[in-house]
């Protein structure tokens, strides 16, 4: 073999240099852990609570990143929640019972013909640059959304029924409607300062994230933002409702939920919510933790099964391949009669949910509806079997067979990312299998394509409900159907029924709250009987916060509700910092001095190792020279 003598340039750096480079990097990393001022171990809670000059900071771990800080573009929950803190809305929701209360507007009233709403704008709200917030700002905001397609991306649906918006005086806003609309006290649109935003050119590209602090008039002023890292808001001392108690609220991004829980345990963050809830395991692990309170409130979501009632476009063109058996109300009801909700609550949600019935969750008490005893479709497999027999699906062997001789086999769309869907899918397979119905659970990362193509029989469904139920009721109207087959549409699952639509229009035009609530309940009753939507559970909101950082915080509903994602700014506005004398031992173990000792030991070990190798190298080189 010929000896290969590599060219000079191919020689690797000497081992020593490589070692020294690695050692230097390790040294740098280790040294950084013992630098004074950098939190170590139990020092973290102090960082979150009173870092510098006694400033109190409430840090919230969030899983989402901000899509835009422009309230005209923001779609994600985090971004819209931040908008809620930055800008005042015309009205707000009462923390106790969700009824509309004053926001930027102190009062509002409709005209006799129900088509004109007049709002009185408060005169004690100022923008953070000192200018007065007026009705002109509100009129400009709504007009911008109405006239600029780019500015309508986030809140366009709120103004579709608006004919004209004017501000006859700085304290008077007038909105003229095309049709009567009972939701005029539920316009969740942030009002922005005209004198700042009128300078914006292209609204589709302006993200409101270049100049800080951002001019606003909400309870907090956005002071700093770093993409995918944090959003910082400082208290607006001049907020008309009163200054928040914490000096600063920081939304810190944790892309991994377990890491966020670890951060809470350590005290690096003051609050962690799930997305949408902490898992039962996370909640259980935090329950025994010192200085941590797990808060569990009634959720605003419902978890349901939806059937395909036959996909169709607005002009009645049918598409999709939903199983025709589900067009029979008896079959739909039979399916729902064979779901044991209690088992699902106990086994899948592990008790962190409430059994579902009506479409609106019980936390929205004004609209909450329950079926009567005779109406109820509780767990009753025998009755389900009877209904299937009546519908013509007789049991042959262990299969239900239709009049055409084909077995009754169904498909259900499940979200691959939701473990609840998968677990419940297994139960359904078992329960429906006992009735002779075959079930294929089709779990996908994104179910929207087969769903909007109408290529499904059943689907796991769920929505967050607002204090005003108009939106979730509206997604089942004929108007929500797509214009073209398979196109994106506001519809949830292609329901289009005249009875339901008539009730929907009636509730929207009804300005008397009690009468409107009654119509909303009638709609839920219709929905329940139809069997198109079967609500299985209302999952609870499960979240946790550090009691050594937050002394008290308002939940919504106030009695025993949730903290994150409220309709309003109550939680962060009301949060009271724990006193400086509070025990701040996070249970993180040891003390900062222990960390310093370990860090110093690490540095010494690296230095000693480096020295030893250096000495060896010198000796070797000397030997080589000999």
């Amino acid at each position, binding site marked *: 073999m010929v000896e290969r003598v590599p060219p000079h340039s191919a020689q690797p750096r000497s081992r020593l240099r*490589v070692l020294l480079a690695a050692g230097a990097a390790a040294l740098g*990393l280790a040294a950084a852990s013992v630098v004074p001022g950098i939190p170590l171990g139990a020092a973290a809670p102090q960082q979150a609570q009173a870092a510098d000059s006694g400033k109190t900071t409430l840090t919230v771990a969030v899983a989402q990143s901000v899509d835009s800080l422009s309230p005209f573009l923001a779609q994600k929950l985090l971004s819209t929640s931040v908008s809620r803190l930055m800008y005042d809305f015309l009205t707000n929701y009462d923390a106790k019972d969700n009824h509309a209360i004053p926001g930027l507007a102190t009062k509002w009233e409709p005209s006799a013909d129900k088509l004109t709403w007049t709002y009185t704008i408060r005169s004690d709200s100022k923008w953070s640059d000192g200018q007065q917030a007026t009705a002109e700002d509100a009129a400009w905001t709504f007009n911008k959304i109405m006239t600029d397609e780019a500015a309508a991306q986030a809140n366009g*649906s709120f103004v579709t029924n608006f004919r004209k918006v004017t501000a006859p005086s700085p304290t008077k806003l007038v909105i003229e409607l095309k049709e009567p609309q009972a939701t005029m006290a539920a316009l969740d649109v942030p009002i922005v300062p005209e004198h700042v935003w009128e300078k914006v050119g292209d609204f589709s590209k302006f993200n409101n994230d270049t100049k800080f602090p951002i001019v606003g008039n909400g309870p907090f002023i956005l002071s700093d933002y770093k993409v995918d890292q944090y959003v910082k808001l400082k208290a607006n001392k001049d907020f008309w409702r009163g200054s928040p108690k914490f000096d600063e609220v920081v939304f810190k991004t944790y892309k991994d939920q377990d890491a966020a829980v670890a951060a809470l345990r350590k005290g690096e963050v003051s609050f962690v919510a799930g997305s949408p809830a902490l898992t039962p395991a996370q909640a259980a692990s935090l329950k025994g933790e010192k200085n941590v309170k797990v808060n569990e409130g009634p959720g605003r979501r419902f978890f349901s099964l939806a059937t395909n009632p036959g996909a169709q476009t607005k002009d009645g063109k049918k598409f999709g391949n939903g199983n025709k058996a589900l067009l029979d109300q008896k079959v739909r009801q039979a399916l729902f009669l064979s779901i044991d909700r209690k088992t699902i609550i106990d086994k899948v949600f592990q008790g962190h949910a409430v059994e579902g019935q009506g479409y609106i969750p019980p936390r929205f008490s004004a609209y909450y509806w329950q079926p009567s005893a005779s109406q109820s479709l509780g767990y009753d497999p025998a009755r389900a079997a009877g209904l299937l027999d009546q519908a013509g699906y007789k049991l042959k062997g262990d299969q239900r067979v239709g009049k055409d001789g084909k077995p009754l086999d169904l498909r259900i769309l499940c979200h691959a990312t939701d473990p609840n869907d998968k677990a419940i899918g297994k139960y359904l397979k078992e329960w429906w299998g006992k009735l002779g119905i075959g079930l294929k659970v089709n779990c996908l990362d994104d179910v929207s394509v087969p769903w909007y193509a109408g290529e499904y029989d059943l689907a796991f469904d769920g929505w967050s409900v607002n204090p005003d139920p108009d939106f979730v009721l509206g997604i089942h109207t004929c108007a929500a159907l797509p214009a073209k087959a398979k196109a994106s549409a506001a519809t949830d699952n292609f329901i289009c029924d005249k009875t339901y639509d008539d009730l929907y229009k009636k509730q929207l035009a009804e300005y008397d709250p009690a009468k409107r609530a009654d119509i909303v309940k009638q709609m839920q009753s219709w929905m329940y009987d139809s069997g198109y939507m079967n609500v299985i559970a209302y999952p609870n909101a499960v979240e946790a916060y550090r009691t050594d950082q937050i002394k008290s915080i308002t939940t919504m509903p106030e009695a025993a509700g949730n903290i994150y994602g409220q309709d309003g700014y109550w939680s962060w506005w009301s949060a009271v910092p724990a006193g400086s004398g509070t025990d701040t031992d996070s249970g*993180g173990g040891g003390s900062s001095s222990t960390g310093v000792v370990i860090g110093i030991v690490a540095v010494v070990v690296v230095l000693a190792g480096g020295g030893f190798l250096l000495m060896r190298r010198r000796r070797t080189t000397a030997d080589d020279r000999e």
Partner: protein
Amino acid sequence: MTADSTPALVKQADADTDGPAPAGPPAARGPRARNTKAYLTYVAAKIAGAAVSLFAVLVTSFFLFRLIPSDPVKQMTGGRRVSTEQLESLRHQFGLDQPMWQQFTTYVGDALTGDFGTSFQFHAPVMDKIVEALPATLLLTGTAYVLYSALGIWLGTRTAWRNGSTSDRFNTALALTLYSVPSFWLGLLLIIVFSVGIGPIPGMFPTGGLESGNETGFAYVLDVAHHMVLPVITLVAVGYAQTLLVMRSSLLDEMGSDYLTTARAKGLRDDAVRRKHAVPNAMLPTFTLMFVNLGHVVAGQILVETVFSWPGLGGLFYQGLSVPDLPLVQGLFFVFATAVILANTLADVLYPLLDPRVGR
């Protein structure tokens, strides 16, 4: 990745045996000129190949992400109050209502001028988002790359030279074990042990993020370094085994060679034989691996970036895929592939300088 990731070592073998002899230049110019011309031809061929690969990636990225069954508009507005008309308007704004061929020609035309469009969800130019997240990724994976390459080479050399010893068996087994560990799991474990703290071990490091958000100047640099410790350790732990194993096997191949016996016969110390003769030759496959890994530095590590909430390209790609934000994922895919292609091309171009038999 569709990038040309054929190890240069394989090409070296090809170069040894295949291909016609290069057309001889005039004899008067001599072998040096002939070598230079052959090298330049070789480099030009590699660069041309890279350009073709890049174009293939550009085309592939358009169709690849359209195979994902998804409706970006519905995903983005999921849970929000939107009307059917608003959804149609968004589809129009994003150009999703255009025929596929029109979307494709617009995309390729714009991409050739460096414009990858506007991110659906972030309402910002894709290249701006990439430039914004790139430094964080380079800092994290670049540091880890240097450390795991150095550690892998060093330990690979040591274990091979002491082949069969206890330290060889231990180091090889440990490296293989760590290599098999899922990086997100190891990351979480490190967070629990060294961030939160267990028993006598205090929580020394932050649980995530790149910075605390309240430091400036030198304190900021230290703060970032402090945040880097655990993610870097995670990346190094799961990454060094590859280099170690390649270095080890390559050195073991060399160890029976006659030239080492000759070197020893000349009276050279064992250490010098290893350092000056064996290791340089054994480094060639390791260099190839390092260049391949260098290309992946840009892509970041999606799982590690997620666990440690690192604001880099890996996390951005994950967010892009969840919609899918087509312009963003197309742009990122192209950048990732470009990095790998460039690293491989660089390896190809440099390799003849390391091993003169390649490229002739």
